[in-house]
């Protein structure tokens, strides 16, 4: 059936959990593109036959005209599905980049096509360029700050050499808990060396 494969692509996006990526279905994707070429070939054949019969392609409404129309519509539908597939995946990727920063984890990279990998690299450099043009890092401060101080637990042995902004040093042994300035802790948290304790 025409358009069946393309609809499977779209279904894949629609049925996957929101914000989750599935591995790029390159086989199915290529088959749909192949189908498009086939449609175009048939379309051209029909048009040529009409021309050979001396009919005006624009106005003649014989069976070949409607045949050609079906091929045209199937092709356009396939194109829409292919584009929707890419477009939605690109959107999921961008949302992900807002969450985890520009470094996409390996296990997700494996699910991407070559062109998608290229895209996110370029896109993240576009973002970086914007951030430096406004002199603001937009990847921090993702949630509204409630308190200048937060409770943290140290996950890694950091020793006592870390200087805090009030010129004091704290002893950050592993599993110890501290009450720190959010600005002091934020960087250590995003590096995974501390975690915030929420009540």
């Amino acid at each position, binding site marked *: 059936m025409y358009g069946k494969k393309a609809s499977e692509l779209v279904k894949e996006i629609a049925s996957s959990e929101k914000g989750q990526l599935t591995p790029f279905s390159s086989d199915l994707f290529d088959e749909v593109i192949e189908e498009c*070429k086939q449609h175009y070939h048939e379309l051209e054949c029909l048009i040529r036959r009409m021309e050979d019969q001396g009919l005006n392609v624009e106005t003649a409404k014989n069976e070949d005209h409607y045949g050609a129309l079906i091929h045209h519509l199937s092709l356009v539908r396939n194109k829409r599905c292919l*584009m929707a597939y890419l477009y939605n995946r690109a959107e999921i990727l961008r949302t992900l980049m807002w969450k985890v920063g520009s470094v996409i984890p390996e296990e997700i990279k494996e699910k991407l096509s070559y*062109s998608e990998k*290229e895209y996110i690299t370029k896109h993240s450099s576009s973002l970086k360029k914007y951030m430096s043009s406004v002199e603001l890092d937009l990847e921090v401060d993702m949630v509204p*700050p409630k308190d200048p101080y937060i409770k943290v637990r140290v996950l890694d042995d950091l020793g006592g050499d870390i200087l805090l902004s009030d010129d004091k040093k704290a002893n950050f042994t592993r599993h110890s808990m501290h009450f720190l300035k959010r600005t002091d802790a934020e960087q250590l948290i995003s590096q995974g060396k501390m975690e915030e304790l929420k009540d």
Partner: protein
Amino acid sequence: MDSRDGDGSTEDYETLIQTTDVELLKRAWRQEKAAPEILKFETDLITRLTGQIELVEENVEQDSQSGIDPLTVSLYQMDLDRTQFLLRSYLRIRLQKIEKYIFHILATAELYNRLSKQEKEFAKSCLVDLEKHLEESVLSKLPNNYQSIFKQSMISEENDMVAKPQLDTFVVCKTNDYLGHIQLEDNEDGSSDDRANQRPLEEPFEMETDVLYFVRYKAIKGFVEEGRIDLF
């Protein structure tokens, strides 16, 4: 950032608070968050605010070194943090809208002109990146007449491949002054001046001040752009 020597002795205090740049930013942020399409960039406001943020940053820095009560300093710090969050979040929401509706924004001059200078740059490079991705993966492999990124095929008369924001979505809003005769029905398509043929309209919608309404964005779009209606 409230100015440090603002005196709160008069009854004007409320209005004064309402018009500080931080309040204005909060409002702009809320509007941007709630509106389905991108709104005009608050160029002046953002310029003023970045200046003020730098100033307060310096003050906090100085105060914390000069032995002023740490509690006072931390209050300023908290104020600063909150403002910076608002600013960052405001810019982020806008970028996300640009990313999402990039083709639509760049094809519509009215929307494109709402962007800041830096956002325009970003939009352009964003477009190039996405275009290249789509070209390489699909468009270049399709037959000649079907390669357009904006149109489904050569015979499409308008751009029918472009994702647009849904303007008929519902928003929660409130008005500052009484607004009468808001047309809720969509009479854009069809002959709007041919009254006889129109199906009976709902009563023209009126908005009282300080009452929350839940209406389609499209109907109040104009008022939002003029700043007469607040979104929530």
